[in-house]
Structure formats: C-alpha cells, structure tokens
C-alpha cells in the first residue's frame, strides 16, 4: 500500500473511529485536521468571493425630483415627467404620480384617449392606471409624492 493510500484509509478509519467514540491513529487525525483546515479556508474564501461578486454600487442618478410649486399643476392637468418615466395627474382631491413603466416586463406604456396601453404585449390600463386587461397582473405603480416646506412637489422615483 502506498503512503497516500495508507493515509486515506487511516483517515477513513480515523473518522469512523471518532464517530464511534473510539481512539484514532495520530496520522489519521492529523491528516483529517489538515483537510479540515483547507476546506474551512475554502469556505471562508467562498464567502468572500460571493460578497465580491454581488457588490452593488448604489444609485447613480437622483432618486428624488423636485417638480416645482404645486400651484404649477392645477387640478385637471396631466403632466409628463420625463426624467422619472412618470405622469403627474392633478385632480380635485390631490396629485397622483403614475409610473409609465409597465408592471409586466418594463416597457414604457403609451397614453390613449381612455387610459394607457403597452405596445410590447398589449396590457391596457384606465386613466388612473388601474388594470383593465392584458398580460400584466397589476395596475400601474403609483409613485410617492410629498410636499416640502416651500410648497414644492417632491417625486420619489424608487
């Protein structure tokens, strides 16, 4: 039996004996320990590798847009906000911001006389973004709007 073969079998023996609560050979134990250290090193390295690969650098564009004074958007108007891919709908009860990104697979929907239609797969939405039909399963996403202390509308794109 070569040196390697005898070490393998003594390792095997060692782990069986350890499992049974019996003693083990010195060589087998040391060999097992060595393998353990190397595997442990490998696992730690793997952890580091995964963190390395999934790093996200964060947003590179502003996520909040100042739309100006709310008086610029009187009730009854619909304003396109190009940088946010959204449309601002001002009504008597308040202001609504709809994301024009189709909730199905991300194409930009187009406006129609009675709402919105997505050109990619045909999803249809009403004038307030509610789902009428189409492969999309949800209504158009409503974006958050706040009013800051100077009376400006702040749109959150996230």
């Amino acid at each position, binding site marked *: 039996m*070569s*040196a*390697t*073969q005898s070490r*393998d079998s003594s390792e095997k023996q060692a782990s069986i004996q350890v499992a049974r609560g019996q003693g083990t050979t010195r060589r087998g134990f040391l060999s097992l320990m060595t393998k353990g250290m*190397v595997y442990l090193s490998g696992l730690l390295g793997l952890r*580091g*590798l995964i*963190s*390395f*690969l999934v*790093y996200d*650098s964060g947003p590179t564009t502003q996520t909040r847009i100042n739309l100006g004074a709310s008086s610029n958007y009187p009730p009854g108007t619909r304003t396109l906000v190009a940088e946010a891919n959204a449309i601002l709908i001002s009504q008597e009860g308040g202001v609504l911001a709809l994301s024009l990104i189709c909730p199905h697979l991300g194409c930009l929907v187009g406006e129609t006389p009675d709402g919105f239609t997505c050109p990619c797969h045909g999803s249809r939405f009403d004038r307030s973004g509610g789902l009428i039909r189409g492969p999309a399963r949800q209504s158009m996403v409503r974006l958050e709007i706040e009013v800051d202390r100077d009376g400006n509308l702040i749109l959150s794109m996230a």
Partner: protein
Amino acid sequence: MRPSFYHHLHPPTIPSPQARFRYTLGAGGISVYLTLVLLVTGILEMYYYVPTPEGATHSIQTLTFLVPYGGLVRNLHYWAAQGLMVSVLVHLLRVIWTGGYAPPRRFNYLLGVLLLVVIVLLDFTGYVLRWDEGVRWALVAGTNLLKTVPLLGNDLYILAVGGDQTGPATLVRFYAWHVFGLTLLLVVLAIWHLFRIRRDGGIAVPPPELRRDPRRITRFELARREGTAAIVASGVLILLATFIPAPLAQSIDPSNLATTETQAPWFFLWVQQLLKLGSPFLWGVLLPLGLIVILGLIPYILPLARPAELGTWFPQGNRSAQAMILILLLGILLLSLLAWLG
C-alpha cells in the same frame, strides 16, 4: 486510491533526490501556481475594471475601496504577478546553474525563454492598465522606444498605440493584449513547456546506471508536495496582499504638464539606467533583444554539463554558462539599483 487526472499529469514515479525542494526550489511549480492565481484574480477584476481613460482609475478605486474584498483581489493579482516574475527568474537561474538545458531539453529551454518574454510583456501591459500618473511616462517612453526601430518603427508604434499619441485607443489595445492575446499565448506556451518536460524524460537526471541514489517518489507524493507548496504560497500571497497594497495614484490628467513620477516599473529599471547612456535604439531595443537572443543561444553555443553530472547544482561541464548568467544577473541588479537610487 485511483489516480485522478491531476495525478496522471505526473509520471508514476520520479527520482527522489531531484524531487526535493532543495534541488528545484519548486520555482517552476510555484510559477504554474502563481499563473493560476493570476488567471482567477484577473477574471474577478474584469467584473469591475473599465478600460477607458476616464473609467480606469475610478473603476480600480471602486474595486479597491468599495467592493468587498476587492482590494484583496487586486493586491493578490499584483503580488502574484511580481512573484511570478521573481519565480520564473529563479527557475531560469536554477535551470542554468544545474545544467538542465542539455539536449534533448534545448527546445524546451527555448520555450522557457519565450515564456519569460511573454511574462514581462504581461507585467508591463498590466501595469499600464492603471492609467494613473505613476505609469504615464513609462508608457510614453516605452512606446516611443518602438519608434526608434529603423524602417518598421512608425508602424510598430501605431500597432501598439493606435494613434499618433497614447490615448484611449492605446488603453483598449493594451487591455486586449493583457487579458486575451498575451494570456492565450502564455497558456499555449506553458502547456507545451509542461508537455515537453514529460516528453524529454522529466527533471534532468544522470542515466540510471550512473545514479547514486536509486530511490523514487510516487506521483501521489509529488502531488502532495505541490499542494503543500501551493498552500504556503497562498498564505504568503494573502499576507502580502493584506499589508502591502498595490500602488495607485490619481488619474492621468493630460493638462498636467509636470512630469512627477519618472521611475520605470521595477523590472525595467535596468533598461531605464541603460537609456541614460545614449541612443535609445541601441540601449533600449537592441541590447535587451540581444540579451534575450544570448539567453536563447546558451544551450547551442556554450559547453554543456556531462550526463553524469546532471541532477546536481553547479556541474563542472557548463561552468562558462553559469558564470555568464551570474555576470548578467549581477549586471542587471547593479543597473536596477543605480536607477532606483536616482
């Protein structure tokens, strides 16, 4: 245990005296391992590196400071590269000082010399990819050396630089060479070199009847020794990478006209010193090329070690080659030291 693919890459047994670390210094094997480290860390770096003048230093800084373990990956790549340069030189010295290049190993020796050239080019192209103020003038001086070649000079320059001066095209070309062209060449030559070792009969030893120590070790034992060396090398690399970071300076600013960092990369310091003597073509192109040619000619011109002497250090038969490489080594070290001191 049944031998794996890795085990089969090795002969069933090899002579024990020549298998000792004391004999080979493990320099060839460590070179193979460092090359593997470079391939892996290099691919990881490609996830983040951007080969444009605006993006280069920023992407390297992102990798170094912001990506988890990014700095470690970069530093491992840097130290493995410098370590590879050293280990192949040690391997070259070992081969010459043990006379191991005697026939039938002369062709493999030539492959080794070619590998040395490819590795130097890889180190230089990698260095340039930093595109920071530290490499700026080394790139300008180095590429301008190409222009000094008679007849072909201007074409060689455009081939390397991609324009009438160094710029975005240069960076893309150096990136392509470093990541693909030279790496492919390295891998092909390295595999051929390793194959030739087995074809030529393994590590140079005297014929069986002249061997004093008949003992041999198995391929399993050899693989185990290689594994141990790899583990130790990894540990040393990690220590170096953790405590001594790879250099990085601010991005090249074309409007900054002051030449601040003027030292060549360490493996070219000797050339920088020579260039202080006069004609760039003579000292910067002809002489280094001549050196490579001389290296390659050693097994063909100078006396060889006798078969009975193989497998030992400093055999009597090729003393002239040993002396010559010693003188070349000391000369290059001296030139490098002079350049480094200023």
